[in-house]
């Protein structure tokens, strides 16, 4: 089987355009709270979702808009939800970290790691009520240190559940380099629980598609749960307005904010040996520097990479369609919001 790259790209473009719109609305103050985008994760979402059927279920984390858009949840109702409108997907009561679509058996949660056991439950119900259906959990590499998620790996194997765990490894958990607080390797970790584990470059949608096909296929056939470790970039920081990103985007203003207290701390009494302090300062500097480098690794943009597989004309047509769909949804949603 070969992937339908046009369709995959179409989904990725829809996700990206949609989230760009979210960023715009958020910046205009129309969306409140933390807004975590899945920009950079589109290939993972699209590649996995391509294998889902009706009545398959999804448990999502705090970056849940790409999978929901990809699964066909109405864009206008998503936008209305983000803007807290009563006609939103959840009546304006859930917001962007708590999006629920019962029809699509899709639920998100802002508690890191909770998507994994939720998906186990979805899978258990599938096995009883909808044989041949599967559940997918999306989460980040940082979540892989959360106890309930690790327990879920075991539970899925012990109960042979039709579930696929998809770990989107963007190497960061807020401001923490995940590697610095994670022992061993996640692929081996998953495998050690008895999961069939796959690693894939999550910026290459065609590869995600092929890998997910195997994992979802096994689960659907009742041959056991799977794990996919998909690397991907974190292109927009942890959330919109990420202060660490701001340091790079507005270096002067932000350094003025962060710098002086740090310098004060560096010099305050009682003094640790000054070299030690410089070292500690270095830790922060390094984190910021790494982040800076990451930020500009834009060639890992999954859309750019997928676009390379298409003719320029096709790409543009798809992009235009996606933009139009998003613009229309946004126009309608904004009209509703302003009309209140």
């Amino acid at each position, binding site marked *: 089987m070969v992937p339908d790259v046009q369709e995959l790209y179409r989904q990725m473009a829809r996700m990206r355009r949609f989230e760009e719109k979210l960023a715009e609305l958020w910046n205009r103050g129309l969306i409140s709270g933390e807004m975590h985008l899945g920009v950079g994760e589109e290939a993972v979402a699209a590649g996995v979702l391509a294998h889902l059927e009706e009545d398959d*279920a999804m*448990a999502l984390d705090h970056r849940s808009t790409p999978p929901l858009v990809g699964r066909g949840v109405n864009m206008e109702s998503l936008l209305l939800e983000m803007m807290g409108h009563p006609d*939103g*997907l*959840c*009546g*304006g*009561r*859930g*917001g962007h970290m*708590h999006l*629920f679509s*019962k029809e699509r*058996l899709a*639920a998100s*949660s802002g*508690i890191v790691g*909770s998507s*994994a*056991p*939720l*998906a*186990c*439950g*979805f*899978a*258990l*119900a*599938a*096995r*009883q*009520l909808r044989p041949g259906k599967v*559940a997918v959990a999306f989460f980040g590499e940082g979540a892989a240190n959360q*106890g*309930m*998620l690790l*327990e*879920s790996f*075991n*539970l899925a194997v*012990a*109960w042979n559940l039709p579930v696929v765990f998809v770990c989107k490894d963007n190497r960061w958990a807020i401001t923490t380099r995940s590697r610095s607080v994670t022992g061993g390797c996640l692929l081996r970790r998953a495998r050690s629980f008895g999961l069939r584990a796959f690693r894939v470059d999550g910026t290459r949608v065609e590869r995600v598609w092929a890998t997910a096909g195997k994992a979802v296929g096994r689960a659907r056939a009742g041959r056991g749960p799977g794990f996919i470790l998909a690397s991907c970039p974190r292109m927009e920081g942890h959330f919109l307005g990420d202060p660490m990103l701001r340091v790079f985007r507005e270096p002067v203003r932000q350094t003025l904010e962060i710098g002086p207290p740090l310098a004060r701390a560096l010099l305050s009494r009682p003094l640790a040996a000054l070299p030690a302090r410089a070292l500690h300062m270095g830790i922060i500097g390094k984190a910021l520097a790494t982040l800076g480098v990451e930020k500009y690794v834009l060639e890992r943009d999954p859309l750019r990479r997928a676009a390379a597989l298409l003719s320029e004309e096709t790409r543009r047509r798809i992009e235009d369609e996606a933009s139009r769909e998003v613009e229309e949804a946004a126009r309608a949603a904004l009209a509703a919001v302003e009309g209140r």
Partner: protein
Amino acid sequence: MPEMTFAQAIDYALGEAMAADERVITLGEDVAMLRRELLVRFGPSRVLQAPISEAAFLAAGVGAAMAGLRPVVEIMMVDFIAVALDALLNQATKVRAFSGGKWNVPLVVRAACGGGYGDAGQHEQCLWGLLSGMPGISVLVPSNPADAAGLMLSAIQCDEPVVFLEHKLLSDYWLDYLGRGGRETVSFDVPEAGARGEVPKPPAPVPIGKAKKAREGRDIAMFGLGVSLHRCLEAAQELEKDGISAEVVDLRSACPLDREMILSSASRTGRVLVVDEDYAGYGLSGEVAALLSEEGLKVDFARVCAEEVVPYARSLEDEVLPNRRRIREAALRLCGGSA
């Protein structure tokens, strides 16, 4: 109506519910042995043996409930809910609210609770106060076999998360497992009327949030549930000799409370004593006080609860858990006498 033990009544209701509705399943640690009769009837796909992973399997219960099953998830002892609370606090009880009322979680959490057999306070807690503090949950604490069966049935039929607590002192197999261990050399203060009694066949659902008057009285209203209800009844008998007529109300659920019955008993007697095996602070007894105060009902009020961590030694434990003596003394004080 056949007579059953408290434990039999629960599993009887659960079994009937499982027979009537394929979507009802049960899962938890050691269920293959604890619920072996259900396992034999319904097989391992509906009686699922779980690893010691409460956080995961309770949250999986939430997911299963969202996706169409009606799971009864056993957290062996309610104390262990501490490792799995997220599934209730941030997931199960939030889904209805966050989804704008569009999605719900018909989940039952079943757990053994309570003390009186010498395991100390990491295994003998009640925690219904803590659990009731989450909006969107019901917490049931039956005090006898008929209510146990009826409330289990209602819990399973309920479309929202329900915690069903099974007091170990009423539940013969738990008491034997954890306290007696087949010995003849130990004894427990088991309220007989709670441990065994008639149960309607087929089981009749008992509405959630409806209290029951367990004894009529004029001078003071005592509110209790679970084993404490029986302690109230025992104390009420003694109080009769003191010339005090005590009304006893079985709250049956810690949450929701039966406002109406609480208010009517309280206003009629003018004196309220809450007897609660759970911790005194920030729990059921406070909620009853608030409910009365909010209604402008200015009654004499006292509570007899667990004031501290339940200690191991049986003699110390007996003093920390509400007992007849403490209840009687509190009642006498409220009624202006002294013990």
